[in-house]
């Protein structure tokens, strides 16, 4: 199986993430959407690491490990903001919070 199948899956996963960000009202679910998008990119790195037959490039794997750490930091900050928003408004619904003009 060539990397093109994996890439089709990667773009599908990316679209799922965007769909999740665009339609979900719950702040936590939006963070899940963000994580899905980052994982799509990670998967893309892993599937493209086998460019030369019989050899797997370790660069892509070390990149993915660093990227997982970074996405952990992003979700930590995001969840902190969710906690603050919940304490202030008592809801996780993003449309209830929307008092700002766009």
């Amino acid at each position, binding site marked *: 199986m060539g990397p093109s199948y994996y890439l089709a899956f990667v773009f599908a996963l990316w679209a799922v*993430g965007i769909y999740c960000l665009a339609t979900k009202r719950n702040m936590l679910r939006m963070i899940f959407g*963000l994580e899905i998008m980052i994982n799509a990119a990670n998967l893309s*790195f892993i599937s493209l690491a086998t460019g030369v037959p019989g050899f797997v490039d370790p660069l892509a794997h070390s990149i993915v490990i*660093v990227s997982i750490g970074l996405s952990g930091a992003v979700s930590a900050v995001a969840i902190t*903001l969710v906690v603050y*928003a919940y304490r*202030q408004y008592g809801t996780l619904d993003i449309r209830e919070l929307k*008092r700002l003009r766009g």
Partner: protein
Amino acid sequence: MFALPLDLLLLFTALSPLAGILAARMRRNAISGVYSAAALAAAAVSIYPVYQGASAGAVSSIVNVGAFTSYMRVDMLAVAMSAVFLMLGVAAAVYSISYMSKERGSPLYYSLLLSMISGMVGVVYSGDLFTLFVFWEMMCISSYVLVAFSRGSGDSVEAAFKYLVMSGAGSATILLGISLLYGMSGTLSFEGLALAFGRSEPSLWIYVASIVSLVGFGVKAAVVPLHTWLPDAHSAAPSPISALLSGVVIEAGVYALCRLCFTAFLPVQSQWLPIVMVLSVVTMVVGNVMPLLQGDVKRLLAYSSIGHMGYILAGLSIGTQLALTGTFLHIFNHALMKGAAFLCVGAIIYRIGSRQIGDMSGIARRMPITATALAISLFALIGMPPLNGFISELTIVTAAFQSDLVWLGIAVILNSVLSASYYLRVIRVMLQPTASEAVQGAKEAPWLMLLPICALVGMIVIFGLWPDPVMDLMQRSAAGLITLLSQVTG
């Protein structure tokens, strides 16, 4: 380890909690403020030896930490950009000493400020795309928290969440674009990308990668359909952070696009640049029409940043050496002008406690120095002749006319005329003879706020009258960027 200024910044960032502990023990918030201002100033001074090294040619170094090898490449453009970042960083840190003196948790604020600026300097010094991405995330994560820093106002948490979601989606898209480039070339260093793609035929995947990267970096650079986070985030942040976000953080996105345009996107450059050109015109029109409708002065300045991003992108989309000189010059000038404008507005808000333009009537009589400085920086943002904004807009327009893109040049000129209408409205309100209720008791801003404001305004005037040294620096940066491929192939 890395380049000298970046090493110093990372070291000072790691040590900043110690200054915070000392500040808490002695009950003086100013200690961590002075510490961070001194750290940024030391890093700014240490650019000079790096500049001397880079004038002979790009300096590369390989940092080996375990499995992953990161690659730093410092050329003239990197030196020029890092100098802009650190200059505005020092101004914002000095300003924060008195702006944040009453806030709790200010040691955290200064640590985040330092790590945001280290992230930005890292972005411009990195020589491969993944190192760039790691520093990019360092900058982004610090800025999410800094936007939410204003205590007691609910808007800032919402704005920070919106910023986090949009910018996080942008970062994920950038990573996807990087992975596609890696899959095609097997390398991520800029020199390797230039070698792999420079003389190749365009394939389907390079089109996909260029569009995905444009979307990803475009979110951070506030290209118009992706700009909606900017007015909320920039107006909700504390004023020194607004100055940094508008003045330098969004420019980091343009820097990355410039780098990619002349390395990985060389085969599709002739199709990619017209897309950027159309987007730049849309960006400047939206960025100059929306401020007409704003009553909140910080939102007005935030929207006008979008307009200036339009001019900067227009310079990139022309793609000649003169146009790129104009782009980098405008990045430098915009950092000075918008930084000074946000700091002045912050000082006024600090004194009168309101962000509405209507509440500022007659402020020029109560805070003469701040109001004069604000007026000068707004005139520079319009592009009035003796000030620095004029020089860089003129360079971009001249480059457009030279490349037979007359309509683009005219669009830039018409937009700066349009922008005068809302900047002049702010100046008119400030000069009104009747003082509003909020202004009655206002007095001049503290001297620690006036010091960075006056320094920035002084530079606006000086580099308007005598732009040669910066012009020369930016010209060499643009030349280094364009000729990267021929440098590599020799």
